[in-house]
Structure formats: C-alpha cells, structure tokens
C-alpha cells in the first residue's frame, strides 16, 4: 500500500516536472521574433536538441575560419543568432539578446551559464553586417524593417 502511494507520488512528481519543462520551453520560445525566420521554422540551422547542447561548439569552430580565413558564409554565425532571434519593444527598439528576459539571456540564466559572447559582440542587429535576403524578408514580415534601415542610415549601429 505504502509502495503504491510512493509510486503515485513519483508519477505525479514526474508529470509535474514534464509540465514545468514544457512551460519553460514555451517561455523560451516566446522570445523568438514573431514572423521572423526563427519563429517560422521548427528548428534552427540544426535540430533543436543538437542546437541546445552544441551551439557553443558550432560557433567556436566557425569563428576560427571566419577570423583566420575570412570565410563569412558559414551557417553557425553569431550575428545570425542575433538577426533571427532578436525581439523588439513597443517602440520597435531591438532588445539586447543577452538581457535576462531575452532569447540568449533567458536560457543562459536558466542554465546558470555565463554568457560572454556579448561582452564584445553586438547584442542587437546593426549596420555592421548586411542582413541576408531571408532575414530581411523575416524582418519585413515582423514590421521592423524601418527601424533597422534608419539605424543603418544614421550609422548608430547600436
């Protein structure tokens, strides 16, 4: 009898854990720009499971060929993360992606892993790198093109 109760408790705890997990997953998904490429796809440049665990390795390998060999077309680009996953406030200002409630920042806070990329790298899209045609289309759909173009013209870049 006690055994059955214990099992039931275990099952209940397991269910609760699964619900929390899916809520947290939804929470993270919320930060994907609506209408952006990231929101429209079922996975990033690799399957989600792989991206969750390996994105840092992908980025690290690609940075070597970019910095040392000038290859700028690889699919694991950090500016690609930013361009695809950035979200905007009511005034259409890009919100830095490493903020604790944004795509990168939220997950890193959850996993308790320090996020150093944006100590040096831009945490919002700016004039520095031309967006790809797909990214431009995605931003147009999300209604944020104007803002990005005005940043480019003013050369603010941040």
């Amino acid at each position, binding site marked *: 009898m006690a055994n059955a109760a214990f099992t039931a408790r275990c099952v209940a705890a397991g269910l609760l854990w699964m619900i929390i997990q899916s809520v947290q997953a939804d929470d993270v998904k919320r930060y994907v720009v609506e209408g952006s490429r990231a929101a429209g796809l079922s996975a990033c440049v690799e399957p989600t499971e792989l991206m969750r665990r390996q994105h840092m390795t992908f980025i690290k390998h690609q940075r070597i060929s970019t910095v040392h060999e000038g290859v700028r077309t690889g699919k694991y680009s950090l500016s690609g993360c930013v361009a695809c996953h950035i979200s905007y406030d009511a005034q259409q200002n890009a919100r830095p992606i490493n903020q604790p409630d944004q795509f990168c920042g939220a997950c890193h806070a959850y996993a308790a892993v320090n996020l150093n990329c944006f100590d*040096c790298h831009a945490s919002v899209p700016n*004039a520095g790198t031309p967006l790809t045609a797909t990214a431009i289309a995605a931003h147009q759909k999300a209604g944020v093109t104007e803002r990005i173009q005005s940043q480019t013209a003013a050369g603010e870049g941040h």
Partner: protein
Amino acid sequence: MKDDHQAITDGIDQGRRYFLIAGATAAAVAPAVLLQTVTAASQATPVTSDVRWGLLIDTAKCMEGCTACIDACCHENGLDLQRPPGGEATSKWAGQQAVWMRKIKLQDNQTGRVTSLPMMCQHCEEPPCMDVCPTGASFKRADGIVMVDRHLCIGCRYCMMACPYKARSFIHQEMHGQLTRVPRGKGCVESCNLCVHRRDHGEDSTACVDACAAEGHHAIIFGDLKNPESRISQTLRELPSRQIREDLTLNTGVRYSGV
C-alpha cells in the same frame, strides 16, 4: 625599393593572373552577374596568399591638419563609440582611447621641411607583434593582413611593446553598443585590419581611402601588391617610395612616398 617590390610580386602564378584578367574583361560585359559571383566566392572560400593587401600613402598629397581618414576609420570601426570611464580625466582618456590611425608630423630640422602623414599598422610581412605573442592571438592572414584574434588575446600587451610603429591600442573599459562588423571588449589589443570586413565582403577600398578621396586629396591608394596590374603596384613602379623603418627589414605592406 625595386628589390622589395620584386619580393612582393615573386611567386605569383602568372597563368592564374591572366585568367583573372580575362575575367575582368568579362566583367565589363556582364558586370552585375560577375560581381555577385565574385562576392559570393570571396565570402565562402578561405583567403589565399595570391593577394597581398597594402596601402601607398603619397605624403605630398596629405594635407596638414586634415583628419578625414582618422575620422572615417573611427566611424567605420566603431572607435567613436568608446566612452571614458566615469571620473576619468580628459587628458588621461585622450591617451588611453583606442585609435587605429594617427597623424604624424615629420620635420627636417636642417631644411625645416614639414611632412604630414597618417600612421597605422604597417601590415609587416614579418610582424614583430606576431613573434612576441604568447597565445597566437596576434597573427597574419594569408592575404597579408595582420590582426588580433580577440578570442585568444589575453591582454598581456607584449605586442604593443614590440610594434615599432606604436600601432596597437588596448581596450581599458567595458564596451556597449558595439558594431556587428567590429566586435570589441575590455582587455584585448587591436589595430588597423585594413577594413577586413570590407575585404571579406568583396569591396575594393578601405574607409580611409574613401574619406581621403572624398576630401579631394587622393593621398592613399589601397590594393593588391602582388598584382602587377593593380593601381597600387603601377604607382609603386613609378613613384619613389619607402618603408618606414626599412632598417628593420619587416617588408611592410604600407608604403610612403615623399618622405
């Protein structure tokens, strides 16, 4: 000088060169199509030693008091986004702030002749900064651009001491609002990288060259030192030019005429 230029152009695959020239002719026929292909190819393939990027600065055309190249460089590379740390004295900040280009005034004490010139990383073939770097962060790309890989730089500043041209700067404070094309953060060393993002995206000049031309001075020429047909090579053939501190035999990629 002639010998140096010979050294620069040595080892060029002439067959490939003629192929490129033929390609350039085709470009006149279908410029848009070819430009796209070239750009895509230049982004996707590793840079090679078939080219060596360099600058030629004609000091006779460089105006004293003009800082157009420096301003353009600061804007292009986000150096104008630096802010002094709170409470820092202005005089101290002026010396600490990272800059990639400086204007230098040379005076011949005997004749009184004054020459004005921009000084930046000279993109040596044998860079002393690379020799002293303990981590391999200071490196030279195959196309001759001397750069810092900030992922590897530990901020020891050996390279700043080793550089005969005082070309390197250190970032002393935390940065915010960096440009995507020029990442920058506290604790790393950096210097002119010949607008490396422009190279990789297939553009054909640097910010300083464009700014100088826009001012109507045309004192700086950018180009491929290994291509005998490039404007920089042709001008180097005609104009007497020198390397600064040529006694160090570093074979610099930046040359000066009129000094």
